[in-house]
């Protein structure tokens, strides 16, 4: 029972952290892209 609990905790924490990190990475890049686009006044159309 202890190991079941520990196992579930560990695997779902790992999966959750990975999903979270992916979302954060995507958000960060999107923010930078937006900033870059704004800087150029929309000179470069999004590809």
């Amino acid at each position, binding site marked *: 029972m202890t*190991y079941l609990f520990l196992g579930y905790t560990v695997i779902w924490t790992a999966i959750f952290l990975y999903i979270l990190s992916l979302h954060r990475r*995507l958000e960060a890049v999107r923010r930078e892209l937006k900033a870059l686009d704004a800087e150029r006044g929309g000179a470069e159309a999004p590809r």
Partner: protein
Amino acid sequence: MRFLPWVAYVLVGLALWLGLVFAPPEAVMGQVVRLLYFHVGSAWNAFLAFGVVLIGSVAFLRTRAPRWDRLAAASAEIGVVFTTVTLLSGMFWARAVWNTWWRWEPRLTTTALLWFIYVAYLILRSSVEEPERRGTLAAVVGIAGFLDVPLVYFSARWWGGFHPSAVEMSGSMVLALVASVFAFTALYAELLGLAVATRAAEDRLARLRAGARP
């Protein structure tokens, strides 16, 4: 595609309920059998992910289209995550049932080696700047690594070992297992889309930056 995250997370929730509440404890292992549902699901995801790495690698070498490289890279990353989950859940299960954290047994050996191969693959990727070169070298390692896997598996099998491949399961346990495999497959698809999109955005950012500095 917009519904994919919802499908994935609802399925995962459902699988969790089936595995934790709906399915009965097993006669010999007791409650610990509940680890197996997600152990099998993540192992399936890991192999699926590394298969996709192989496909992406071969396609990248043939076509030179960056999107294949992004697919391989994203899938390798997810594969490593699920290999880690497989190993960890397996270790907790083994501690409870075998009374040891680890056994040198074919599938364990193979999975551990897979982990090392694809971690090396990811480290290799992080140490090359130039995208085309990175894709090419990574593809070669992706292909060689995948070819290594069956050899490791059979070697480890003849080395001797034991893995429970067929546990006596009741109908509701099979249902929980199948649900977890489906849920994890959907989760894989969702994460793959996310990871590929991240890499595409990163590549675009790098291109824009390179263009800004002539």
